[in-house]
Structures are given as structure tokens and as C-alpha cells.
């Protein structure tokens, strides 16, 4: 009898506390979302992080507006960091990893690609400003295939993807219009799909496209909107181990999961500043056990959403945090 009362009492106090302090506990506690990083320029701190790349060994490369690249482990512990050669004109918005383990940086405002060893030694840089084939205006992201061909997306009037050899020699450029499709508008993120094709977040067309390695547009899905299946400014892409696609929607402040036919499998996150909420998510990376590292740019942090939360489309997570959508 007394035990029951105590339970009721503590429940009441818990409920009052929850009402007073918001319901973070539910989101952080029960669904076990991890958050690391905070505002600042120190180790493990971020100033508007915008791009992430993760190695299979569990190293996260993150670039932010402090003009440096930080290497962190999956727990968010800083390992090393290095400054970019120049950053006054603007900071990079895309990172890619090569099969050789090198880090490829889309140095957006300097119209070039920087190539680093994983320890921060700059090994190569290529690209000049311009609109001619092989030149860049504002490169967005870099993806490198298994044969070390380098694909660079760019925007601001030069919305296209250019293909280079490993030494930076220009090979070709494409934007989808050659294949009869709508031309790209800000290809913000480039990633390799399980099908071996190049998947592109075509941000200002609010859609996802995929291209063969020769530049042929193979398919697209998505439209502008905030209902499931639609998206606003998809900025970040990565794949779960089950072959489904995770999209970070900059404009809708959320993560959406799609199958390869473009069926929305679920939505997670909403605009806000608390745990489980996002502000301008620029990028995503999938880690061990399908943990999703979401670059929560406007909140200067990384949120690690466990696979359980996103993949459990059977409704075991709360409706507010995750919505299952029947295709």
C-alpha cells in the first residue's frame, strides 16, 4: 500500500518536473539519442558544422565555420584537428573519403578540392574558379569511386557534377539534362549507393537523383513539400545497411528514410533546439550498427540516432519522434 503511494507520488513529481522542464527526458532517455559537441571553437566544439565523413574504423571528419577539420571518434571525443590553408572567403561544405582512406574536401569558396591524408597532411589540391568545363564556382561535395575517379558537385549557376581522374585531370561534366531530365540545382551531397551508382541530393529541386558512373541520369524521386515522401532542400545523404537511404532535409529540419524506389519509410526529428530536434541539418553519416550521425548545424552539435529509432518502423518509437508511412 505505502509502496504504491510512493510510486504514485514520485510519478506525480516526475510528471510535474517533465511539465516544467519539457520532455527531453523522453527523447534522450527512452530512445537513447546521443548528443555530442557544443558551440565553440575548442576541441569537440563546433561553429556551424556543415559536412561529415566517416571511416569504417569509426573516425568522423567534421568541418565547420571555424575553418578547421576535426577528427573525432564515434563517442565524440576529439582525436586531432587541423586548419584549412585559407578560410576567410568561406568554409567547405562537403567531405568525401577515397578508397585509399584520403579525405577529399570541397573547398567551396576557394573553388577547389583539397586532398588530405587522414592525419591532416595536405597531399593535393586542384580546381580553379570559372564556369568552363573542369572549373568550379562553388563546389559542394566530393565522392570518389573504387577506381579513384573523383566526382565534384557544384552550384551557383554552375549546377553540375564534374568527373576527374585521381590526379585531378578533368574527364567530363554532367547535370542530368544530357539524359533528358531536369538539370541539377545545387547538388549538395554525393554518395555511392549499394547499387554502385552515384546518388545525389539535388537540393534546390527538392529531389534525389542517381547517376551511372558515365554521367547518365538513371532516376529521380521526390518533390517539394513537408508531407512524407516530399522534401525541402535535401542536403545530406547516406545509406543504412539494409539498403535504405537516409536524407537530411535542411528545409524541413528532419531526417527521412526512403527505399530505393522513393517510398518514404519514416520521418524523424523536427525543428527545435532540444535533443531530438534539429536546426538546419546539413549532413548525415551512418556508423556502426547503423547509428546515424546527424550534423545538427544550427545547434552546433552532432546527434547520434540509433538504428532502432529509425529502422523500427513498426511503431515502437513515439509518434512524435518517428512516423511510419505505409508505401
Amino acid at each position, binding site marked *: 500500500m505505502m509502496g504504491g503511494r510512493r510510486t504514485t507520488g514520485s510519478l506525480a513529481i516526475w510528471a510535474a518536473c517533465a511539465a516544467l522542464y519539457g520532455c527531453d527526458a523522453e527523447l534522450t532517455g527512452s530512445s537513447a539519442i546521443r548528443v555530442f559537441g557544443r558551440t565553440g571553437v575548442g576541441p569537440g566544439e563546433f561553429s556551424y558544422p556543415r559536412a561529415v565523413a566517416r571511416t569504417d574504423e569509426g573516425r568522423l571528419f567534421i568541418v565547420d565555420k571555424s575553418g578547421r577539420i576535426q577528427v573525432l571518434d564515434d563517442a565524440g571525443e576529439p582525436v586531432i584537428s587541423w586548419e584549412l590553408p585559407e578560410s576567410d*572567403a*568561406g568554409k567547405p561544405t562537403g567531405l568525401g573519403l577515397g578508397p585509399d582512406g584520403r579525405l577529399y574536401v570541397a573547398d567551396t569558396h576557394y573553388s577547389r578540392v583539397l586532398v588530405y591524408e587522414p592525419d591532416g597532411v595536405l597531399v593535393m589540391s586542384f580546381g580553379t574558379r570559372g564556369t568552363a568545363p573542369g572549373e568550379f564556382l*562553388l563546389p559542394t561535395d566530393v565522392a570518389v569511386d573504387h577506381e579513384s575517379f573523383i566526382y565534384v558537385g557544384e552550384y551557383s549557376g554552375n549546377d553540375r557534377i564534374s568527373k576527374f581522374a585521381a590526379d585531378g585531370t578533368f574527364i567530363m561534366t554532367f547535370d542530368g539534362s544530357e539524359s533528358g531530365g531536369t538539370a541539377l540545382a545545387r547538388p549538395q551531397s554525393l554518395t555511392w549507393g549499394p547499387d554502385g551508382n552515384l546518388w545525389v541530393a539535388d537540393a534546390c529541386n527538392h529531389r534525389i537523383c542517381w547517376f551511372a558512373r558515365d554521367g547518365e541520369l538513371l532516376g529521380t524521386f521526390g518533390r517539394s513539400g513537408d508531407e512524407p515522401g516530399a522534401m525541402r532542400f535535401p542536403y545530406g545523404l547516406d545509406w543504412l545497411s539494409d539498403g535504405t537511404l537516409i536524407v537530411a532535409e535542411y*528545409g524541413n529540419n528532419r531526417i527521412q528514410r526512403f527505399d530505393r524506389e522513393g517510398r518514404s519509410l519514416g520521418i524523424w526529428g523536427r525543428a527545435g533546439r532540444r535533443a531530438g530536434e534539429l*536546426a538546419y541539418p546539413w549532413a548525415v553519416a551512418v556508423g556502426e550498427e547503423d547509428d546515424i550521425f546527424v550534423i545538427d548545424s*544550427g545547434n552546433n552539435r552532432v546527434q547520434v540516432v540509433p538504428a532502432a529509432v529509425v529502422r523500427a518502423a513498426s511503431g515502437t518509437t513515439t509518434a512524435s519522434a518517428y512516423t511510419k508511412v505505409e508505401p
Partner: protein
Amino acid sequence: MIVASLALIRFEEPGYLALLAVLPLLVVMSYRSLAGLGPVRRWLAIAARAVVVTLMILALAGAQRTKTIDDLSVVFLLDRSRSVPEDLQRRAYEYIARAANELGQDDRLGIVAFDGAAEVEQLPMAALAVDAISKPYAPDQTNIAGAARLAMALLPSDATGRIVLLSDGNENIGAVLSEAEQFQAAGVPVDVLPIQYEHSDEVVFEALQAPPTATAEETINLQMVIRSQRAARGSILLYHNDALIDLNPEDERDAGYPVDLAPGPNRKIVPVPLRAAGAHRFRAEFRPADPDADTILSNNEGRAFTVVSGQGKILILATPEDLESSRSTALLLKRALERERLVCEVEVAGANPLDQVRLLEYSAVILDNVPADDLRDDEKQTLATYVRDLGGGLIMVGGDESFGAGGWLGSPVEEVMPVAFDVKHKKQFLKGALVLVMHACEVERGNYLGERCAIEAVKTLSSRDLVGVLAWKWQSDAQGHWTVPLQEVGRRTPIINAIRQMSMGDLPDLDEVMRPGVKALLAREDVGPKHMIVVSDFDPQGPRPDLINMMKRGGITCSTIAIGYGGHFINEGLADSIAKETGGRFYRTNDTSKLPQIFIKESREIRRSLVQEGEFQPRLVNPLSPIVQGLTGEPVPILGGYVLTTARELADVPLSRVTEEGDEDPILAHWRVGLGKTVAFTSGLWPRWGPHWTDWPKFTKFWAQLVRWSSRQSEAAAFDVRTTVHGGKARIQIDAVDKNASAVNLMEIAGRLVNPANEGTPLRLTQTGPGRYEAEFDARDRGNYIVDLRYRMGRGTEAVSGTLQTGLSVAYSPEFSELRPNLPLLEELRQRAGGRMLGEQEPAAVFDRAGLRRAEARRSIWESLIYWMLLMFLVDVAIRRIAINPLELYRKARRRLGEAAAFGKEGKEAAAVLSTLKDARERVRDEQRDDAAQPDATARYEPRTPDQKASEDLSRALGGASEMEQPVVARPTRKKPAESEADYTSRLLRAKRRARDEMTKDED
């Protein structure tokens, strides 16, 4: 960690404690009244009651708990005024940093940096949190007193405090010494670490003195005072109205006057002839031959000016386009006025900065079709002040870039004009629509800047125009990206408030925010000009071709402003192409201070509809106006256009245009405002708007009358005026003599003072001696102080009145005249505030607690006392009303254990106890019979005595019969028992008889 070494109770109103004297009385009274409770409960109840009353009295007395505290908060005051060299400021900060290394566990460190203003760099904290001192705010001043007051406010009340002053002691605002005792009284000593320096190689231009007033054709003597620390050589350059005077005619290459300065003050006198009326500005500069011989170069300058009375010149401001054209309106006006012997100067608006001293040269200013953005904000304010406080004349001549069409709406100039530039009353007015697309693009203070630009743009719109503001919102809401949905400007305030809430997000795509703006503009068919302004770094995705086509088809013009910072990449090509394709203009700037002007200029785009073109006959409404006198014989010539305005209620409108709707639009309006006069002529632009007007023979006379009416009048006054400035205080002294050289007494002399910030304040001179009038005012800021005075002497018909302009200049900050620290002031402060003189070597001393008065923290506890009082009150009631019976509890317990089994055995024992009790009862009954035998009319119910109760309870507990059926204590009775019994019997008999009667009736 606050460590309480001793806990004490103090009282806010100790007088109430006297009420504690009632406690013994309470005890005595309670002892009597609670006699029936038995000794234990009685004393418990008395104790509870005493506690209740004591708590109440303590609460009334305002009890507080007091703790003495070991924490020490030290606030450092760091002087960052100009008199302290920067390297010494850094050293002072390093001293604080070293002191921070000595912070103990209970120590806190705060920093206030000060100059003329004091700023909190760090609140008292357990560590040093700032790595440098922020930039000076008002470095030309030093206000130690203000900084010390701020430090006092920062010290926590629950910690011991100390202020450490790091300064050279050269204060020029406030008087810290007069407040020093307060710090000591508050238990906060002020320790001082003097910042030591000595400028030994220094030349200070102490004063350039010019007579404040003079007459035309007079030669005045400029007196220079230059103080040098040691013998020095150099030359003096003298500028008259910005033109260099050649003081060294022998040397063609160098106009400087060579001087050899002796140690101490050096005086030089230079005669300067003055020709024209108005203000004559002088600037003298000492240039050392050896730059190393002078440490501070900022104090090598002197400024002064002299006002020559008489009809001043007329300044005509025009646009470069007008002056370059072969049919320039401004030059036409100039020629007309010169024919009437008025001296005119024509100038491109904005080419030479307008300031009050310069404007004193002119008795009137004409703005000839000048758009608002050609002048800076402070120049517009200067013009308004020139009219209102200094009695100048201002004439605005119309054209397609004047009045509301020129962006003047909402400016300080509009406030002084006889017409308002808005046209709320016009029904047929074609309104314009403006949409602003804002993107902060990471520019420093970008949000604030964006707000300011948008507000400036809204201010220049007519209340009937439409405005909308779009900025990327990261959290979508019902309004989409609209900060202000497209709507009528109306009262402006709600829109301005909404803009102040604007948050400009990181915009990914210009199309996303421009598209709703374009759609909203296209939806409005009742609107004339439709314009969009986009400010961005154009790094977001550009608008799609279909959107540009929509704009082109819908007649929406779009101007683009590309801004950035440092080397930030800006997509100029995109910005330029949007502007070109839609017929707008493209601007590129990294100078964010220019943005508001661009916005004002661009918002003009939609106010073109204020310009009304087409010939009309102006109507002469008021022939008595001084401006149109003598022009009334024939009709005024036809005009070809004008700008819509609204005449102010108090303005005189001699010429107007009556529209078909019956509105009277002002063409010529004038009024007096403050000390000056303004005229609005809403037409102009000859010959486009009035070829007949320029051919009119009375054109010249009309303009001469108009300009003469509005011009400031200034007469020569036979007064001796002196101005001095010293230690931030300026003094103006006037000696007035009449033509018989006798002092003029009881003169009224008052006017306005205009400071370098263009703020006008009233100034009144008081008589301090025969014919001498004086006034004093603050002159701490660098720049010109202008005094415009009206005087009146004599009485009745003999009265003479006039005006007088004078003033003085402060060439450099008083901070630059300090050559060494003011150690006596610092020593005096230390003594008065009970502090120590610190050395730079022992920073740990600042946290030394020796001799400090420990702080006390007090906390009111009356509320908790009230709670305890209520609780004790309940306890008191409970003690009196609830009797807890241990035996009863025991009985219940036994019953549970097995009542039946125990009964047989214990029943016998109970009977034995019972007989003992019966004896006791008999004994008591006998005693009570004795008591009852005594007559007692006031006898009342009394509780049973504990003995009785115990016997009853016991017998109940043991299962015996109660012996208490009859009352033990006699009740007062008025009737004798025998009578009662007889009465009872007779009632029974009556009832029996009645029952029998009824039974017989029933049988019948």
C-alpha cells in the same frame, strides 16, 4: 562556497519584541483556564501556546537569519581612456591575469573596463574568463566615479567586496573623490594601482583663440598657445575655412610658419583679415621638425571660429546631373538671385560635408531637387538643427527627386518643412509596392543591419504604399518566409516592430523567398510601381528562369545589393543578371554603412507616383504672404508638374493647385519653425515643368523675396564676447556696453546651444557683474559648440533686440593633454576610501582579507515562522481536544490477541479490582456531596477528574459495568427533585388515562 562561521538572528523591527512581556501573563492565565486537562496536558498546552505567541511576535519583529561570509569579491577597474598608453593598458590587464592565478577557493574576480563609459567585462567569477579588454567606447573621456559605482553594483551583497583601481587618475567626468567616503561607509575599500607614465618629449597645442565675433572687413588676431616639455623646433600650418594660409611667403614650397619652441608655454599671434559675413573657421597645426620629439601627435591641433555678422551667403545644393546639364535649374536660380545682389554658392549635395559651423556662413540653404540619399543622416539632422535652433533658412525646390519622391519622407528635414511629404488624404493616388528580400550573409551584425535597412526603407514610403519583407525562416510557420506580409504601410509602427523581430536564416535558395514576393506583387492589380530589393551575397541558388520571366511580364523591377565581408566570395554575376533582366540596379559593396542609403534610394523607385506631371494654372490663395507681395497683379504663369505633399495646419500656403477632385495641393508653402523659417516650392525642374515660369518677368523678384524672407538675419552687436574652455567646461562671457560706453544692465539674453552631436539645448546667460553676462556648459566632446543668442535691452519703445552667433571649438580630447598620472588624486581617493596603494609586483595582495569588514548575509525567516506558528496552533488545539489513551490502545491490542480465552481468568481479578474501585467511588461521592451542599449558582460543567475517568476507563477495559450512568457532578437545578417526581407520576397517570379513553372510543 559560502561558509557560515556563525548563525545569528536579527530583527528588522525589534520594537515588537517588547510583546514578549505578555508571555508570563499568558502562562498564568492558561494555567488557570486549562486546569481541567491534567498536569501533563496542561503544561504541554501552555508550552504550545507560548510557542505560538513567541513565533508570532518574532514574525512581527521581522526576524532574519544572519551569516557572516568569508567570500571575497574583487572588482578591478581598468582605465582604457586615451590618456593611458595602450601598452600600459595591456600591462594592467596582465596584472589582473597574474592576480587571477592567486584566486583562492572563496575568491571572486570581476572586471569593469572604463573610459567615459563603464562596461562590465566580467561579473565576479571564480576564474578569469576574458582574454583581453574590449575596445574603448568613449576613449576621449575618463569617468572613474561612474566605473566605481558600477563596480559597487556588481559586488554581491553576500560577500565581502573590494575595488582595485588601475588608472592614471586623470578623470574629466564626475568627481570620484566626492563619492569616496560612500565606498568606505559601504565597507568596500578602494585599492589603487597607479598607471605610471611620463611624456617628457611632448608638445601640446593648448589653445587657438579667435574672437568669437567680428565685423566684416575687420582684421582679427589669432592667438596660439603651444606648450612644450623641452626646446623643440617645428612649423605651424594655419587653415582658414579649410584653405591653407601661406604664413611663410619667402619659401614657396612650405606654407608653414617656422617656430622654435622654448620649454613651457609659447605664444604666437597671427593677424587674419576677414572679408565676408558668416562663420570663419580656423585650424592650426604644429608639425614637429623631428617626429621623435613629440610623443602624442593627436594634441598638436587647435581649432577656433569667428562669426562675422551681416547678410550671409546663400548655399544652393544640387545634383551633379543638374549641374552638368546645359539647362541647370540650380544655375538658373543662382543667376536670378545674383541679379538681386544676393551672394550664392552652388555645390553638389554631399560633396562637402555640412556641419553647423560651415552652415553659419550661410543665411539660407536651398535644396534644389536633391534626393535624400545624397546627404548623410547626420547632415539631414544638421539641416534641421540649423533651422530650428540656429535660425537658418531652408528652401526645398521640387522636381522628380524631391520631397516624398526623393526619399525625404520620415527624415528630420521633413519635420521642419511646412508640408508633410505623405499624402494620406489623396483618393486618386496611385500607390506603389515594395518587397524586401533580406539575407544576412554572415556580415558582422548582419541581423541588426538588415533590420535598419528595412526600417529605413519603410520610413521613406507613403502610408498608402504597400510593403512586404521576406527572410528565410528555418522554422516554417503560417506566414511562410514573410516577416511582414505585403500590406499597406499605414501607421508604420506595427511593421517596424515586426521587422525588429526579423531573423534572417541561412538562405539556401533565393527562389524560395523571392517567389512568394513576386506572386504577392502580381496579385495586386491596384498598385502602380512594383519593386523588389534583394540583399544577399548571392551565394544561395539563384531564381529560376520562369520566375525572372514572371517578373519581367508583371513589370516588377528588382534591384540587387551584393554584400560580403573580407574575402568572402560574392556571386556578382548572378546579382547583376537579376538586376539587368528585370530593369533594376545592381550594387556591390563591402561597406555596410552604405546599405541604408542604398535602401532609401531604392525605395524611391515606388514613390515615382508622387510626381504629378501636366500643365496647370497655380492659384494664388493668399496674396498677403510676404513672399508673393507685389506679384499679384497678373495670374501666376502655368507650371508643368509638381510633387504631391500635404500642407501642415499652421503653414501659410500662398500658391496651390486645385485638382479635379477638389483637393488643394500645395505649390508654395512657408512657415516659421523654431528660430528659423522654411519654404517648400513643390514645382521646379525648369524648363521641363515651367518654360513660362522662367520667362516670367517677376521670376527674379519672386525668388529674391522668397530667399530674403527665409534668410537668417544677423546684426552687428557692440558686445565683447569671450569664450573659454577648460577641463570639459566651456564658459561664454559677454560684456555689453551701449553707445555711451556705459554698461548695459538687466538685459535678457538667451538662446540655443548646439553641440557637436547636433543636439540643441536652451542656454540662458545670467548677469554676473555690471554689463557682464555669463553662462557655462559642458564641452567634453571634440567638435564645435555653437551658440545662437537673442538679446533684448531697454524697455518699452526704447527696447532694442537682436541676435548674436558665437561658439567655440574643442580640437582634441582632454585625454591627449595629460602628460603624467594624477597621483595626488589617486592617493586622496585611496585615503578617503580606506584602501591601499598597491605595487605591481604582488598581485596576490588583492585577495588579502586583513582589515576587511566581513559581509553578512541576511535572510528573512518570518514566512517560515508563520508556518511553524500555524502548526503549533494546531498542536495546541490537538493537545486540548484530543486525549490519547494508552490503555485504550492496549485494550484493543489485547482484544485482537484473543478476547474469549483471557476473559474467565481475568474476570475474577477484575471483580477484585472493581470492589476496590467501588470503595473509591463511594469516597469520592461523599466528598462531592459535601461540595454540592455548598450553594453555587454559577456552577458549570467541569470535566471529570482524571481519577474518576481512570476508574471508568479501567472498568470498561476490564469488561466490568460502568459506574458512571449518573452524573457525578451536581448540576444546577431550579426545581427540587421531589417536585419533579410528583410531576413525573402525574404525567404518567394522565397518559394512562388518555390511552384508556381512546381504547374505549375504538370499541364503540
